[in-house]
């Protein structure tokens, strides 16, 4: 391959990788916010889906920026629901996460039929003016730096890390741990909702059934591979995004099935779990006495 040819291959690949990584980075930050305060968050998928759908509906009615605001608010409410279910109802974190994911999947599918596809006359779940993806990508990368600084160089960050390691000890240090957890889950929902809004309002401009299709789980995988740190997670998310982009580029030209390439994030997570020995926050998933 000659120089210009290589550039012609790599440049679109890089742009595509960033586009694919953006929702993973945003949702991954959401995963960090939740898991660092001790709440296992497999509900990222559901939060993204709820954000994507509500964002699109609101976006159609009142413009894409209102759509983003609504997506973020809905995401936050779902995040706080997860907290309420695990803390007040004392549900197992995984059970609550699965419930939220199923609820989000089926309610958005149902509403999509009711409000759009089977409406009389049918309406397309699509918006006319899409937001630029670069806006979200830039925001996502900036937020990675912001959260890194927040987590390691501010009092709030110290408290967040402490709560995730041991809520009981943190309370003994005189901290209102319930408040810290609430902030963590609210932020988690906001970020996952934003990731959802990116999908429906910027990347494709419409909503379809199960459009998140596993990105929430891949974001969580990036959190694990990145050892629950913003910088590590972002690096993992970018790598996953690159694999995804590569898969699009190679489609048709290489004999490898797309499914195999798409499973790379999951394989990478398993390898990372074995090779990096990531140490999750010590209190992650702990149900309080």
């Amino acid at each position, binding site marked *: 391959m000659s120089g210009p040819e290589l550039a012609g291959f790599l440049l679109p690949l890089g742009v595509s990788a960033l586009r694919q990584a953006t929702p993973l980075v945003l949702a991954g930050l959401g995963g960090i916010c939740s898991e660092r305060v001790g709440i296992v968050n497999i509900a990222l998928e559901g939060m993204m889906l709820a954000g994507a759908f509500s964002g699109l509906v609101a976006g159609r009615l009142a413009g894409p920026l209102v759509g983003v605001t609504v997506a973020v608010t809905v995401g936050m409410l779902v995040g706080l629901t997860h907290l309420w279910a695990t803390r007040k109802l004392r549900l197992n974190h995984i059970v609550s996460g699965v419930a939220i994911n199923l609820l989000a999947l089926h309610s958005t599918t149902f509403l999509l039929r009711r409000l759009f596809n089977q409406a009389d006359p049918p309406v397309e779940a699509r918006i006319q003016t899409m937001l630029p993806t670069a806006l979200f990508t830039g925001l996502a990368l900036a937020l990675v730096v912001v959260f890194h600084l927040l987590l390691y*160089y501010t009092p709030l960050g110290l408290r967040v890390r*402490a709560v995730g390691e041991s809520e009981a000890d943190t309370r003994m240090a005189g901290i209102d741990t319930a408040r810290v957890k609430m902030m963590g889950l609210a932020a988690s929902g906001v970020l996952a909702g934003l990731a959802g809004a990116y999908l429906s309002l910027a990347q494709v401009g419409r909503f379809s059934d199960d459009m998140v299709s596993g990105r929430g789980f891949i974001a969580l995988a990036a959190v694990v591979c990145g050892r629950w740190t913003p910088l590590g997670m972002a690096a993992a998310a970018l790598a996953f995004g690159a694999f995804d982009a590569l898969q699009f580029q190679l489609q048709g030209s290489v004999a490898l099935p797309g499914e195999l390439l798409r499973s790379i994030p999951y394989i990478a997570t398993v390898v990372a779990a074995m090779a990096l020995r990531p140490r999750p926050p010590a209190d992650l998933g702990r149900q309080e006495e």
Partner: protein
Amino acid sequence: MQSITKRYPGGVVANDAVSLTVLPGTAHAVVGENGAGKSTLMGVLYGSIRPDSGSIEVSGSPVTLRRPADAIRHGIGLVTQHTTMIPALTALDNVLLGFEPSRLGVLDRRMGRNRVEELSAQAGIEVDWGASADALSVAALQKAEIVKALYRGARVLILDEPTATLAPAEADRLFAVVHGVVASGASVLFITHKLREVLDHSDHVTVLRGGAKAGDRVTAETCADELVSLMLGSDRSVAHSVEATPEASRRSELALQVSSLTVRGRGGRPAVHSADLSVRAGEVLGVAGVDGSGQRELAEAVVGLRSAVSGSVTLCGEDVTARSVASRAAAGLAYVPEDRHREGLILDFDLSENLLLGRHRDASAGGGRFLQRRRVLADAARLLTEGGVVSAGATAPASSLSGGNQQKVVVARALARRPRALVAMQPTRGLDVGASAAVYDAIRARTAAGMGVLLFSLDLDELREVSDRIAVMYNGRIAGVLDRDDAAMDQLGKLMTEGRP
């Protein structure tokens, strides 16, 4: 600061109308047996337990403590028995947590560090503040906890059994810090079982018994005998019921032999180097040593929980080095682990289930392919009676028992199979005089029948009372083995801290 008055009368049985007053600039000891309500009292003082009635006054004005944050605001600091330092954070971050100095919203670690170092210098404490908390020793963590309380402006420092896990020399250093804190005008309230600490280091003492106050004394005007009779509620004097095994039951054959055993500890670091020990049938071999000298790894390697790098373990002449835990147990090796909550019992299980664990293949205990519930219960009831366990019966959850009774259950289970050798890790840790004696009575009954005991303890007084011989571990090696009659305190201390006599 004026005189501090705290009163808690409680409807709770744990604390029945207990009042106590701590004067500024004094060290005040609280003593009592297990279950006397000491920890509850401290929890109320720190806002982690709410009293049903009663009031607390700090410097003459009444305060309400709903959560630890309230107590901290009123100048009360608590150093708990187990550290509350978060392992993944640095010692410095642990101290600053909740009271972080910041500039423009950014955590100012340098400012925090200066303040922390200033306070620790005043109190005569040295800690590596940059190290993560899990790299610090128990003693260092405790000192860091004291600084943490002082950093929060504590004028009343509560220490809950501060020396329970410390070696004697470390305990002395801790009390030097306590005296420094008191000299600065603050007050220290410490809970302990050890009368010597009360007599040596306190100005006033409050004795609790069964949740109620049994008496207040000025330390200089009381003596050990008086305190014991207050604690026990009768005029029983200190006479310890624990004695060494009678010579007659000691035999020549070996119950347990450990030969050049080398064991790796956490993270693969060598923890035990070529240890040699032999326990004769009917003998109690005590193992002394500063906490973390390799005792845990040695004990676990002997019972089979940890594999040895080299060397051998021989049980009654039979090499069991390659055998599993279950197979060693079946061959007559029993184990009383160090932490009864995490390793000894499943707290949510009932007593019959806990007693069955490890014996679940024994038909005589109701085990086997299918459990025979009725036999399990009958067997458990028998063991509970024999073990003198005070409980609501075999179906009571293990969590409902007091610490002393829980330990009796662990010991009863270990001895139920009539083992030929017993490995016991600090079997009386956190127990009062009465419960300790009961535990040793049970062990001694089997020792008389020829069981050999390998007893690990941090309490030298106890080791000297119950052991026939005492081995001292230092840095993973057996530094020496002394006969009980030759084991003078200073000699043991020197072996423990320097590794040579």
